[in-house]
């Protein structure tokens, strides 16, 4: 089990680092794809199958396609890139490194309240999807309906914003 975690974690981490370091925007998008696929595998290993599949369908198969479409519509040549000044790059990377050190230090030294009972019962798979559906339509009904309204508003708004205007 550790092996699979490391494979998916390495894919996700390599994708994330690739996103930062790549200069061509299409390569950035492909590195993001690697990160998303690695994360989907990690969700599978966390026994959150539904989230993993939703991640693949919505994020990798929807949002990322949208992003790549945007890239294709705004880039002229497949290999063009915009460069950043070295000074700003150094400042950004130092900020990132400091932040990472703080976060990692905090995670390693904190005393995490790991519930011992959850590791066994959380694997009781048979009715987990049903419980998710019941929660979405029961306890979390209002956020569910609000999310559908938000999606409707976003559809109309994005269609209006992206419409070609006649000058």
């Amino acid at each position, binding site marked *: 089990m550790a092996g699979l975690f490391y494979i998916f974690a390495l894919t996700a981490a390599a994708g994330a680092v690739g996103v930062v370091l790549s200069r061509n925007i299409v390569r950035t998008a492909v590195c993001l794809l690697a990160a998303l696929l690695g994360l989907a595998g990690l969700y599978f290993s966390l026994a959150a199958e539904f989230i993993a599949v939703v991640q693949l369908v919505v994020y990798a198969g929807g949002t990322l396609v949208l992003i790549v479409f*945007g890239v294709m519509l705004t880039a002229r040549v497949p290999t063009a890139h915009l460069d950043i000044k070295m000074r700003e790059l150094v400042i950004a990377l130092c900020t990132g490194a400091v932040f990472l050190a703080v976060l990692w230090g905090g995670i*390693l030294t904190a005393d995490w309240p790991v519930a011992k009972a959850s590791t066994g019962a959380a694997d009781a798979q048979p009715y987990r999807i049903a419980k998710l559906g019941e929660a979405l339509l029961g306890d979390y009904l209002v956020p569910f309906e609000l999310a559908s309204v938000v999606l409707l508003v976003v559809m109309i708004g994005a269609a209006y914003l992206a419409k070609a205007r006649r000058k």
Partner: protein
Amino acid sequence: MMMLAGVNLVSIGLQHYLLLGALLFVCGLATILTKRNAIGILIGVELVLNAANLNLVAFNRFAHASAGGRPLLDGEIFAVFVIVLAAAEAAVALAIFLNFYNNIATIDVEQGTALKG
């Protein structure tokens, strides 16, 4: 049983996922700070949201006690809503970027200086 900086390398626990989530978050942050292409910034935002999702699902798995044998799925439901809203936000952001590109003929955010000064 191998340990590295106080973290067990063989048995995967909560800390491993949190460390990876932190790395993804910082990479997303660095992307937002360093990219000149507007869509690159959007990609950074997506990375940050994914890191948050990973944290949510990891905490749900390891630190959320189940009541009477039934699994509590609050973390997963949060994650579903985050994914939905991230998709919505990406759609609106791309519509805005396309408008930006149609007006200035470049996707470089450094050229968006109409409101400066």
